[in-house]
């Protein structure tokens, strides 16, 4: 145990944790929205994120993006990569819904079966990037870590006065980007007509359909929105960590799900709180113990939260969130 390392760099570690947590929070939105509406953990959501990271890499490769381009080119490729990742992730999420969940909904299968088809889809997606695409296209697909070019060069933008803490442009982009997306989504769900439909189905599917809400469309919308958020998270992730891998979604998915439960699954704002908190706790833990234990921290936090507060910190459902 090494508390000195933690205390001496507390400000730096906190910033690190918030960066990490912003990405968790964005991915967590996908879990929390699907759970809120369908009472189902979408096991394939982590792979929706993974597809996003590969799409970013793909766009960079096609456009020949590298480090050290002009400002215009950097902004252009980043925006294109963002849009492509959002589209690809939303499309993947929608496909998962179509293939793995919709037929079962029609058959009225028990919840266990949904989880299992979700796991099946997750495996198929992971293996598609780890094995199938390699067979057709060769590397970079396969079971190795692939570098994503760091298009945005990391520079210190400003230093937080008093703390003497340098803030880089990438961190700033990640934190602000994540928060903007979350606020946008929150506003959409709370203010728009479609968002009202989502909340109605989350609260009471039968009554909502009596009131003329098309449940199938709401479910599709939820998968598309959650997928798009995972796409944003994928871009931000590649900006910060510059890598992707066929199974990169697994551990992020677990963390994001933990974040969603921590904040209160089904609650959009809870996802933000849970994500940031988990990110910070993780970085602190990796300082106190050893970075090889980081992944265990999330699981232990999850078990502890479920033991003492099964509904999470802001435990309420999407349906009950401010009508």
């Amino acid at each position, binding site marked *: 145990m090494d508390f000195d390392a933690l205390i001496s760099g507390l400000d730096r570690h906190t910033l690190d944790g918030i960066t990490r947590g912003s990405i968790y929070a964005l991915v967590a939105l996908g879990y929390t929205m699907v759970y809120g509406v369908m009472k189902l953990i979408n096991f394939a959501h982590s792979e929706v994120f993974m597809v996003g990271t590969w799409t970013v890499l793909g766009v960079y490769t096609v456009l020949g993006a590298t480090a050290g381009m002009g400002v215009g080119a950097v902004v252009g490729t980043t925006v294109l990569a963002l849009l492509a990742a959002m589209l690809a992730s939303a499309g993947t999420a929608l496909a998962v819904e179509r*293939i*793995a969940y919709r037929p079962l909904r029609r058959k*009225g299968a028990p919840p266990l079966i949904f*989880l299992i*088809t979700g796991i099946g889809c997750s495996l198929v997606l992971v*293996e598609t990037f780890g094995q199938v695409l390699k067979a057709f296209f060769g590397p970079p697909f396969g079971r190795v870590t692939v570098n994503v070019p760091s298009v945005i060069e990391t520079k210190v933008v400003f230093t937080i006065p008093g703390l003497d803490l340098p803030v880089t442009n990438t961190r700033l982009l990640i934190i602000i980007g994540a928060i903007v997306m979350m606020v946008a989504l929150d506003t959409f769900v709370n203010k728009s007509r479609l968002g009202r439909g989502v909340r109605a189905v989350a609260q009471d599917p039968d009554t909502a359909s009596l009131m003329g809400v098309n449940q199938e469309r709401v479910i599709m919308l939820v998968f598309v929105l959650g997928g798009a958020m995972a796409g944003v998270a994928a871009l931000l992730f590649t900006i910060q960590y510059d890598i992707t891998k066929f199974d990169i979604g697994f551990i992020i998915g677990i963390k994001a*799900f933990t974040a969603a439960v921590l904040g209160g699954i089904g609650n959009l704002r809870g996802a933000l709180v849970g994500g940031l908190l988990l990110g910070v706790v993780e970085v602190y833990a990796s300082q106190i113990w050893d970075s090889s234990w980081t*992944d265990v921290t999330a699981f232990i936090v999850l078990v502890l939260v479920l033991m003492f507060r099964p509904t999470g910190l802001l435990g309420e459902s999407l349906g009950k969130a401010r009508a």
Partner: protein
Amino acid sequence: MSQISEALRGLRLGNRWDSAPKWVRSVGLLLFIAFAFYLPFLNILPFAYIRTDLNPTGSDWASVLFLIVVYMIAAVGLNVVIGFAGLLDLGYVGFYALGAYSVALFGSPSSPVVEAIQSRFGLSDEWAVPFVMCIPIAIAMALTAGVILGAPTLRLRGDYLAIVTLGFGEIIRITARNLDPITGGAAGITQVPVPPGPEIDGRSFFNTIDAERWYWLALVILILIVWLASRLEHSRVGRAWLAIREDEDAAAVMGVAGFKFKLWAFAIGASVGGLAGLLFGSKQQYVEPNAFMLNLSFLFVAMVVIGGSGNIVGVLVGAFLLTYLPERFRELQEWRPFAFGLALVLVMVLRPQGLVPSRRRAAEIEDRRHEAEEAAADA
């Protein structure tokens, strides 16, 4: 697909079997078991084509049979959790790993735990906990872990349980990898003890060459476990599980203590998983963390649900298919996870009750389908 299942239904194998006189069933079962014991030496064409060692690169047939039976034991154990009690446990590999590590940690003279005991009590370098004593230790460790994990989480909804158990499986593996001073870290533990037996041809009875002896041992344990599990299914506890699986609230109203029975299912499943892991570790005589990746958990779940969750025969079929096929077609082995994923989705979407469904469970799913159709018709 539907035509095949229609054709299978036409045969009504299950019904014929059930309506056969008792002596026919007993003789049939005994013949089947005798055949299972003979399998390692199977050499009559065309049946011998099922062997996995036909070409030089193939794997040792008796070892494959052993692995199939070990996975069958694990699948029967997991079936108690998933099939009987309806709890999705995605961290079953954790219990399997605990079983393997228990026998390694306490039974191997080179394990850090045994070395610590040796120096503490001034024992010789050869000393270790005897294999027979390792069995209760392994079962106890897995059982305790099951209770520790289940007690806080089994009060929650099923989906939470899935994630928490998933986390548990990873915690066990990461701990085994990182706790070098106790578990030997990534290098693992060697000299895992084997069951006692008379020496034949200068080798101990259970050795790395004569794998068929391991297979027979595992088969005996499997038969015992299957017998226990089927007794359990039709006991009062089994009926309580059924009630909880179908409707926990209704069961609670009828006086079934949901939490208690779920914990029972979890603990029983865990100890069987530990036993399977013990057999695996002992046959390998070597235990290392990478043998217990999470994929193995998904594999166990796949065996249970593809075969037919809740039906022991179905689960055995599932375990056989998913272990045997990749070994028989080794050249396709790297496609195994992909095939699993695809099979999971296809089988579950087309046949939510599994390949060899439990009749009761199939009836329940059929019932729900009608309800869903009626609801759709109303709306």
